[in-house]
């Protein structure tokens, strides 16, 4: 492998305090596929301070070449400074494709990079396919999740942000070898941004949850959220809610699922007393298995459900809890 190269597929490695965000590994998985189809190298770029060790990790997940910018001026994320570095790297190496996780950080950073490079950027993709002409088709939900748009880009690099948990991360392979290219970020210019620290941490990370039991306006009182919490914990999951319960002040926004809240993709999503508005569906449609409990058989949520129970959640949920407790108890006894 030569020390300089052009025209690869580049993946942005996002991390917080040196912990790589799993979406970056997922993108390396997809990036590998695309790079192989196009017959080019898979690259990754990592910015931070004291993150050298993580560069190797990116190789284990499939990168042929990692551009490492390890420098004190990059210790905290500064969108303008990071943009400078990435723009310079892209101009030097001319990647064909540049993928960034569609996390809040990625969705703030990628557009600045794209605008500086005068290139196209597709937002929040849920699929990337190379068609028979070797063109990259980027598929993304739009109109609050009501449609899927297929998008092509006529400039290079083709840039896209990609949603968390829609691609499969490859297996970590410590026998893989790649090149880590240590780069210097250049002079740290004043950007006008000063990071003053974390104000508060989220109470729950719904994006990572495997099981979510969510409640909506079918709940009569705030206290009844406990019922759903109990069901959630019996299923090994966490509580979620529709927006109106947040607006009522019943619970923190951290628990909100939907267009103006969290996008989630658990293995199991149980919607209790949720009608299934487009804004709610936009946040949970990608769940592996969807269960709906609703008193109204015509509620739209049933149209996306794998399993549904038509009934009063105040009867159905306690029965479910009872049954699950019996099963748990049984498995302990037996």
């Amino acid at each position, binding site marked *: 492998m030569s020390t300089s190269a052009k025209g690869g597929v580049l993946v942005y490695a996002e991390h917080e305090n040196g912990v790589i965000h799993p979406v970056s590994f997922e993108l390396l998985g997809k990036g590998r596929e695309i790079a192989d189809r196009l017959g080019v190298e898979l690259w990754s770029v990592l910015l931070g301070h004291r993150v050298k060790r993580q560069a190797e990790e990116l190789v284990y997940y499939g990168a042929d070449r990692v551009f490492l910018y390890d420098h004190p001026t990059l210790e905290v994320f500064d*969108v*303008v400074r990071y943009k400078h570095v990435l723009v310079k790297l892209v101009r030097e190496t001319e990647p064909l494709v540049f993928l960034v996780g569609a*996390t*809040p*950080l990625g*969705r*703030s950073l*990628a*557009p*600045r990079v*794209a*605008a500086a490079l*005068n290139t*196209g*950027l*597709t*937002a929040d993709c849920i699929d990337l396919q190379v068609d028979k002409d070797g063109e990259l088709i980027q598929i993304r*939900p*739009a*109109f*609050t*999740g*009501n*449609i*899927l*748009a*297929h*998008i*092509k*880009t*006529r400039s290079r690099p083709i840039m896209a942000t990609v949603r968390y948990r829609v691609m499969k991360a490859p297996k970590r392979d410590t026998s893989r070898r790649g090149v880590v290219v240590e780069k210097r970020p250049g002079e740290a210019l004043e950007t*006008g*941004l*000063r*990071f*003053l620290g*974390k*104000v*508060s*941490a989220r109470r729950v*990370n719904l994006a990572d949850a495997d099981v979510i039991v969510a409640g909506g306006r079918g709940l009569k009182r705030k206290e009844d959220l406990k019922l759903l919490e109990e069901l959630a914990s019996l*299923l090994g999951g966490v509580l979620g809610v529709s927006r109106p319960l947040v607006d009522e002040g019943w619970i923190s*926004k951290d628990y909100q699922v939907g267009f*103006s809240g969290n996008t989630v993709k658990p293995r*199991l999503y149980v919607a209790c007393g949720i009608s299934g*508005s*487009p804004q709610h569906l936009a946040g949970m449609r990608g769940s592996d298995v*969807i*269960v709906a409990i609703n008193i109204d058989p015509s509620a739209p949520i049933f*149209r*996306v*459900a*794998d*399993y*549904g*129970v038509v*009934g009063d959640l105040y009867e*159905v949920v306690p029965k479910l809890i009872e*049954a699950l407790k019996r*099963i748990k108890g049984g498995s302990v006894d037996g």
Partner: protein
Amino acid sequence: MLIKQVPDIEKVRFDVETGRVDRSSAPAETNPFDLNALETAVRLKEKLGGRVTVISMGPPQAESSLRDALARGADRAILLTDKRFAGADTLATSYTLATAIRKLGSFDLIVCGEKTVDGDTGQVGPEVAEHLGIPHVAYVCEVREVSEDRILVVSDMGDKYLFEVTLPALITVTKDINTPRIPTLRDVLKARRAKVEVWDADSLAGYGETCRFGLQGSMTLVTRITIPSEEGRRGIIFRGEDAVERLIEALRKEGFIP
């Protein structure tokens, strides 16, 4: 302050055959997130003085959203409308908006919505900031302090972070930052008579390259539209006495219950 007019997404229909969005099928409204952005700007004005200018790029009908913004406290409204702006992706949209802002002259703060309910990319704000060479903070859920040359904001990126930003700057705001006011009848009537300035591509010619507007300046192309399919969903509905038992059985088969 930047606003976009969007179709009512509960009503809008899509033609899957032609892959078109049938915008005539639904009434137009102001992007909900932009009402929060406008409220943010108007509150800052009420506290600190200054003027709020709203800019929207869109078809002539977008004028109604600008009038609504005037009723809600904006002082000046500019509609960017021209066939040559049409078909723009976020790159061309942001370039055109940035060019218009350059023509306006000096400003302290640009406020955008977090994203729109139609295009839904959330890219226009950061891209405008880049074209203008100013810093930005996305997902702002609280403005803590403002002084003449800086602003202190909280950004909701899952966890919440505090940033100090030197002005001029751009922020994009979430729906949680405030509750937009309802305009009074008097304000609505006054806004009806107010002037909405209209700028076309030629009027921006001295401030940017017109070849970067509209379709010509766009690098992404929507080639096809599909409706998300629920085909893979089982759609098994249980009713009556044994519904819960049957659900338990199904969850066991799926491996969620031992």
